[in-house]
């Protein structure tokens, strides 16, 4: 049964259905509604046996999650933007220790200048932290990804970030079928940690590793990520069988056997699909290739999916200054050895709406190969001229 529900509330209920033992909460927009809802679910007994920890910072949130997970407790937290940056040191530790923490990132721009609105700068800045990163197109996807994220995390012994666009998804009210405790119980077995901190059977985890073995430790981390590339679709199929709706996959193609294919991730995929429908009706051959998994990066699958494309446009919601888009660089690596022209479009930074009209015009230009190698969508040249005038 679908409910018309705010994305944050749907995610909170899905997380609660996964029965975490520890939830660490520190508020930051646009993530706050998620941990607020979880606090209500814990207080009212809907989520029993869970310790809801009000921590003093995001650094503490991740540190407490690390401690909890290391003792064998299923641990969850959520953050965004500067909050994620403040966790950075602990993020690498969680991944390096192989702790299957699940965290929602309600994607938001990074300052300065301060900006509370949506783009992907925050999660992209931590792309090499060793966390798996999954991106949600809709609130149904965001809700379902959390259930699958716990399963994936615990199976791989790796932490997973579920990235959902701040405000655009977290604050959007739309139909969602929220997984029940019973349904989740059939999909997500009890957490059995690979190693566990226990005063009765003391072990050390995360001990120092010197030059003689550090490369090997990192190689194993890389291999675990590559293993996740096959587990993500497998667990997605199992989810689909149990829940009767699509589960996660590495890629989400839509009319992707087109001459021009746009690669993108997150909630912009919906607007892109509507745009592509309009273009196809006009005889312009454009398709969409959504990325659900960004880390690990499904390079081989992406390359295979783009084999027939005459050109590829990568729509990035984050900027690497001095380079261009962030995902574009990964796509280039995946397309290595092919001659497919690749255009880089940076769009929707700091909450700038990405409209169908702008996407339509950009994709028509791309289809004529009349696009700059790096394009900033809807760049306000009057504003730039004014800024130059004020030197």
């Amino acid at each position: 049964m679908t409910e018309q529900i705010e994305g944050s509330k749907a995610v909170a209920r899905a997380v609660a259905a996964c029965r975490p033992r520890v939830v660490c909460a520190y508020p930051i927009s646009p993530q706050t509604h998620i941990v607020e809802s979880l606090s209500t679910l814990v207080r009212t007994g809907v989520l029993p046996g869970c310790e809801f920890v009000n921590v003093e910072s995001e650094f503490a949130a991740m540190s407490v999650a690390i401690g909890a997970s290391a003792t064998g407790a299923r641990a969850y937290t959520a953050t965004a933007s500067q909050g994620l940056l403040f966790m950075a040191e602990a993020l690498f530790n969680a991944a390096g220790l192989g702790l299957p923490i699940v965290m929602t990132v309600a994607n938001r721009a990074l300052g300065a200048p301060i900006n509370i609105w949506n783009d992907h700068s925050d999660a992209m800045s931590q792309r090499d932290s060793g966390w798996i990163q999954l991106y949600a197109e809709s609130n149904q996807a965001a809700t379902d990804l959390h259930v699958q994220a716990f399963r994936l995390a615990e199976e791989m012994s790796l932490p997973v970030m579920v990235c959902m666009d701040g405000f655009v998804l977290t604050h959007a009210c739309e139909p969602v079928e929220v997984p029940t405790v019973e349904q989740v119980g059939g999909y997500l077995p009890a957490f059995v940690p690979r190693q566990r901190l226990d005063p009765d059977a003391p072990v050390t985890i995360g001990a120092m590793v010197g030059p003689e073995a550090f490369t090997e430790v990192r190689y194993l981390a890389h291999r675990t990520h590559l293993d996740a590339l096959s587990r993500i679709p497998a667990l997605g199929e199992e989810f689909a069988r149990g829940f009767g709706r699509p589960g996660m996959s590495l890629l989400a193609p839509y009319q992707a056997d087109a001459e021009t294919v746009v690669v993108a991730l997150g909630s912009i995929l919906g607007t892109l699909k509507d745009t592509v429908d309009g273009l196809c009706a006009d005889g312009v051959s454009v398709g969409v290739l959504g990325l659900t998994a960004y880390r690990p990066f499904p390079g081989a699958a992406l390359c295979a999916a783009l084999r027939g494309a005459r050109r590829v446009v990568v729509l990035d919601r984050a900027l690497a200054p001095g380079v261009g888009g962030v995902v574009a660089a990964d796509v280039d690596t995946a397309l290595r050895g092919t001659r497919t022209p690749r255009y880089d479009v940076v769009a929707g930074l700091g909450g700038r709406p990405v409209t169908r009209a702008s996407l339509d015009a950009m994709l028509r230009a791309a289809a004529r190969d009349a696009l700059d190698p790096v394009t900033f969508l809807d760049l306000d040249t009057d504003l730039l001229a004014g800024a130059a005038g004020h030197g």
Partner: protein
Amino acid sequence: MYSVRIHGRGGQGVVTAAELLSVAAHAGGRYAQAFPSFGSERTGAPVMAFCRVDDRPIRLREPVLTPDALVVQDPTLLRAPGVFTGLAPDGSVVVNAAVARERLPLPPAVAALDREHLVVLPATALALSHIGRPVPNVALLGALAALTGLVPFEAMAAAIRERFPGKVAEGNVAAAHAAFDLVRQALPAGAGRERSDD
């Protein structure tokens, strides 16, 4: 697809209005999407929220740029830039004001709308008398439902009761009902069916 844009000020329940509308539409078996256009949340600051209703799943996530219906919750926003931008040619407008339409600073195209497309009602006064608080959002939804037929009144009432506790819910339902009746009585017979841009 039918789309609604609601303009108001922080504290007037703009976001709640869009959500209630989407819940009522969903209860009627349709697909709906409601979302706010947030600034930093401050009481009194201009706020917008959007609602789309369709017979198939809604993928589009851009702000509502060409609304089929506009709700203006605060008459001081009538002169604000962008409030009426993109209004569909056959669009509907609901304005909260305690004075007649002739005395409002409406743009010429809006002032020229007939009474099947423009309604001005004292929603704040209705809210004060039925709820005891100057929150006009739900009364305006009642007026919108009557003017456009986008959702049946009973679906709206159910959404209100799902959202608010007992007495607050009943006060809001009463305010919405009063606004609904006010608009229905002023409409010619047969008016008040949903109009759409596609």
